[in-house]
């Protein structure tokens, strides 16, 4: 079964406070606090970068961040979990 692609619901304003990204999601009117690596994952599938599968997101993250100490499988598992959480919050949708 091919993995699903996901994309951020929209460009969202974000303010960083002590390492959290505080974002506003206009469609729902809700405010969320996101801890790493969630903001980075969200940025990797922003409207300007397009939808991606978890494996593709791993590739994008590796290009942008130093993750040499982490195995692909571990990263992919974390990404999948975070995508599920982001989807449940409405910040990300399947595309």
């Amino acid at each position, binding site marked *: 079964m091919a993995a699903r692609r996901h994309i951020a619901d929209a460009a969202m304003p974000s303010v960083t406070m002590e390492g959290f990204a*505080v974002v*506003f999601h206009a469609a729902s*009117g809700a405010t969320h606090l996101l801890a790493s690596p969630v903001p980075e994952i969200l940025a990797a599938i922003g409207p300007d970068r397009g939808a991606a599968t978890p494996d593709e997101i791993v590739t994008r993250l590796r290009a942008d961040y130093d993750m040499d100490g982490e195995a692909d499988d571990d990263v992919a598992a974390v990404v999948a979990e975070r995508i599920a959480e982001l989807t449940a919050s409405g910040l990300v949708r399947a595309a």
Partner: protein
Amino acid sequence: MRHAIGLKIGPVAFRVGSDWAAPIAALQSLYRDYPAPVGVPDYTVRLEAERPWRRWVRPSVAVRGDYILPEALPLDLAHGVLAAEIGMNLQLALGERRWLLLHASSVERDGRALIMSGESGSGKSTLAAVLATRGWRLMGDEFALIDLATGAARAFPRATSLKNAAIDEMLRHAPEARFGAELTGTPKGRLRHLRPDATAIARMDEPAMPALILFPQYGGAEAAEGMGSAEAFVRLTQASTNYGPLGRAGYDTLTRLVTTVPTVAVDYPDTATAVALVEQLWDAL
């Protein structure tokens, strides 16, 4: 309504109507030094008898207005001025969209505002009232209004509602002439209103930029600890009655507030300690 009064408190104009004269007379007395409102009121509060005959038989006051709490129990007529206050709080808390509202007291010095956020019992109202006797201008005891465009705090200096021991405390700092009648047996216990001093009333239209946010908690050993902006942000969303309905404007205003203004959590055993702590923290800014 048979009896009514218009009130202007800071930038907010209320009209309070009542089936009975007594609550209106009490409000007239508490707000006698305030300028009369001009034009249409922002909010209307009605103190009504639940049934026509309840105006005279076991009179009890149902608080009505644009916004209601369907489950709210009516209040004794003797506590009518408290009913009016609850009604005004409710309309403001639920209906206001021009400013971000925070459950906080605020005082001003040199054009800058100290915002003290807390639940009932934190001591924020008493602290503000005491600071107002020590050279600070009282801006408000219950609600801080933050301008959505500029981030400035607007004053909302209503008559301060003091409960139980706070009444006795404030009688040590302010002349009795500034106190309203004492109400006993209210849902909040003993209650007495303290009228703001002449300066607070005269300058109630002057905004001030927030410079320090405190989360005071009465009752512990003296302590002061800086609070991170993320925690301050979350706590203030909980202290706001209209953060959600304001949408993007609320988000922009509150994120700007917590990232530009330092926040400190303060524990204090007594008012004198609290005042000293405030002066220390303010001087250190």
